[in-house]
């Protein structure tokens, strides 16, 4: 089995849920039709009209109407297009938690109202075409708590697993029967309270892992069982290009940004303006650094740490990957903007020491809250779903071609 097969499962689950929504509504429509037939108590032909007051596609209403109509007929009711015939008015409405199918029989004072509810489900996310390189987005995991970071585990001889870091715990999941099941977890204990906008980084090396958290470093292993110990720490967080560790950066105490201390090996320590995220890509035999600063600009430094320009059009999360497709090292960057707007991640590559968009932006319905490198040509992006407020982690895979 391909080690990534498990990653596709949540995506399939999402698609299945969407299909189930339609099935639930049609089933609810049939239930309501049986109630209507019982309440109508007439053999007179009725005029059926249908309308929609909820969000969603017109095809949804068509399916519901067809199911409703078929069930009315199977209950012995006759339908007609004749104006003036007794009317059955079907409305697809919704409230916070449910779709509501409402049937109105008769008019005004004589009106009889019947209702049936079906739980609301997820909405679909439109795909975005990619013109040059392809940045693919695959859903890996979704949960109510913020996902700080996530990594796949594949110790030799063991089935693939999923290690998830959230503010409460590190949890290990295993694939069982087509979906991930939590196997073990260890609580995260911070030496002080979490800052708002919590951040965390998870690094797995064989059987051992490190969880970088604000003011705290946790170390653990995933086999033979998940164990972890956390202690207060001012250690720097890793700055990487794909799988290559290029430096360390210190997170500011009680805040959501790095304080500007950067340590590289070799090269020693640097003091830069504070930044939200840093990335480095290989360029002409040395690293080219990108730091998304607090003023909304991304600042560039060459391998000698000389300023090499600024970028105004990126947001505050970056991830550096390793060179691919014969092009300079790609950087993934989120779009600037408020949380209330749909977000996007786009790949940029180096051409003659300048960055040009390498892929179409990959859209997210809500804000991207974490973006970390997760392999030579891939990254993990976590986005908040605006309707449910749940957090979804996606694997972003940069591939050659268009």
């Amino acid at each position, binding site marked *: 089995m391909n080690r990534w097969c498990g990653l596709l499962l949540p995506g399939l689950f999402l698609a299945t849920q969407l299909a189930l929504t339609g099935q639930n509504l049609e089933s609810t429509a049939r239930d309501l039709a049986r109630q209507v037939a019982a309440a109508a108590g007439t053999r007179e032909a009725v005029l059926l009209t249908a309308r929609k007051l909820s969000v969603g596609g017109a095809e949804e209403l068509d399916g519901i109407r067809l199911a409703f109509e078929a069930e009315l007929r199977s209950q012995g009711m006759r339908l007609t297009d004749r104006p003036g015939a007794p009317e059955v008015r079907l409305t697809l409405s919704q409230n916070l938690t449910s779709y509501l199918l*409402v049937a109105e029989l008769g008019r005004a004072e004589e009106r009889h109202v019947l209702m049936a509810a079906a739980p609301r489900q997820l909405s679909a996310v439109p795909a975005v075409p990619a013109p040059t390189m392809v940045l693919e987005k695959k859903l890996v995991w979704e949960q109510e708590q913020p996902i700080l970071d996530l990594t796949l585990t594949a110790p030799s001889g063991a089935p693939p697993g999923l290690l998830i870091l959230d503010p409460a715990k590190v949890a290990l999941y295993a694939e069982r029967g087509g979906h991930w099941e939590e196997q073990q977890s260890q609580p995260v204990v911070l030496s002080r309270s979490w800052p708002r906008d919590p951040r965390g980084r998870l690094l797995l090396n064989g059987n051992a892992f490190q969880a970088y958290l604000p003011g705290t470093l946790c170390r653990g292993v995933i086999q033979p069982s998940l164990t972890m110990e956390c202690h207060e720490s001012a250690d720097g967080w890793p700055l990487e290009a794909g799988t290559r560790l290029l430096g360390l950066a210190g997170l500011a105490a009680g805040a959501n940004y790095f304080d500007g201390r950067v340590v590289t090996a070799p090269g020693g320590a640097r003091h830069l303006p504070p930044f939200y995220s840093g990335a480095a890509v290989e360029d002409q035999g040395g690293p080219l650094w990108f730091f998304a600063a607090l003023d909304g600009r991304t600042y560039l430094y060459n391998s000698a740490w000389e300023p090499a320009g600024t970028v105004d059009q990126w947001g505050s999360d970056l991830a550096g990957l390793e060179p691919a497709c014969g092009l300079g090292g790609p950087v993934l960057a989120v779009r600037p903007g408020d949380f209330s707007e749909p977000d996007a991640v786009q790949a940029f590559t180096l051409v003659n020491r300048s960055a040009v968009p390498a892929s179409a932006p990959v859209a997210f319905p809500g804000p991207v809250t974490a973006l970390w490198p997760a392999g030579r040509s891939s990254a993990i992006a976590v986005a908040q779903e605006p309707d449910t407020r749940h957090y979804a982690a996606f694997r972003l895979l940069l591939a050659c071609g268009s």
Partner: protein
Amino acid sequence: MRRSAFFWLAVLSTQAFGPYGRAATRPHYGGTLHIEWRGAVSSLDPTEPDRSPAALRLDALLFDHLVGVDDSGQPRPALAVAWQHDPAERRWYFRLRSGIRFHDGAPLSPTAAAAAVQATLKGAAVSPAADGITIQCETPCPDLPSELARAAGVIFARSPNGNISGTGPFQVARWEPGKHAVLTANENYWEGRPFLDAVEIDMGRSARDQLIDLELGRADVAEIGPGDTRRGGERGRKTWTSAPADLVALVFSASRPAEDTRVREALALSIDRAAIYNVLLQRQGEISGGLLPQWLSGYAFLFPTTPDLGRARRLAAGLPPAARSLSLSYDPAVPAARLLAERIAVNARDAGITLQVGALNPRADLRLVQAGISSLDPGRALADLSARLGLREAAEPDSGLPAAPEALYAAEKRLLEGFRVVPLFHVPEVCALSARVHTWLAPGLTRLGAWRLADVWLAESNP
């Protein structure tokens, strides 16, 4: 190097992401948010009965609840991290979050939590337990977590000198009752320190003054009434908008004339909601014939909203002249209330009913009211609303309204049958913002209009 930087800018501005403004996605720490309110809050005591909307806003900044609610109204852990109950759902145990301190530094102990809950929860005995509190209800109380997410669950401590302390994201640094408040960030807030350093609130400011101060950069957040929407939102100004959760309705006095159902129905049928909505409300919110808004109930569309002037005239014509003359009171603190009342009087005159419009008339036959929805649970919201509008006996809230939409619709229909209350609109709360105001992962207003300032950050603040 300079050439390289220039090239970056040129390429990126034309091909990357499109025309987005320059703003980082992640929030900044620091800065003081300046807010102006119409309402004047005279007390910081969250247990004070009939807290005004402005006072409830302030409470949300200073205090936490034992139980929170998520965006769909379901209970979620807050100061209580878990709870359980006995099979009869009469005895409940709530385990407290550890390490919480009040703003005055005192720890949130089971004893302190029990005292706070006991002060606000009726019909139950509250006692401290090992690491939480136990609540014994007189009768089964399956909705206790939801109840504790509302006023009954507010956690506070009262010091011997009478000062009240909360555990919320902000704490009081300066307090001038009814005029001015300065709140500072709770550095140890359990959900994370707010991004803002401080919030300054000026109370009792008229809508006009708020907008002027916003224009002049003296305020960051200003309330916008329905009539100010265009002005407040001009030049692409950002706004916070709640769901249309405030009911605007006519409520007939139970103790005054107008006891004849016909005059109430005639008045209800005379009102041209669509014209008022388009002109006076500038299409903010939704036209409504129900007590609950459509987005909450899903069935509000079943209640009629179109005028029927012919029937209204026939009903009014059958009444003696004295019964066709009524007084209508409005609250000038409610945005656009006078304009709405006067427009309703014009509609009523067309049906042959005379309305004498006046402000704050305690002897009026009917009042124009604006009442907020208190809960995202439709049954609870309807029970609360009917109680506040004087329809309590009809809704029987103490027995618990049924949650099924069909039964809820039947209950609401019964409440409206006598036309004692005539729903007109549901309107949102809208705030205009200065350009530097941003929020992180959650809007500045909840669906029901509560302020969520812990997630607000200011663009030019220094970290």
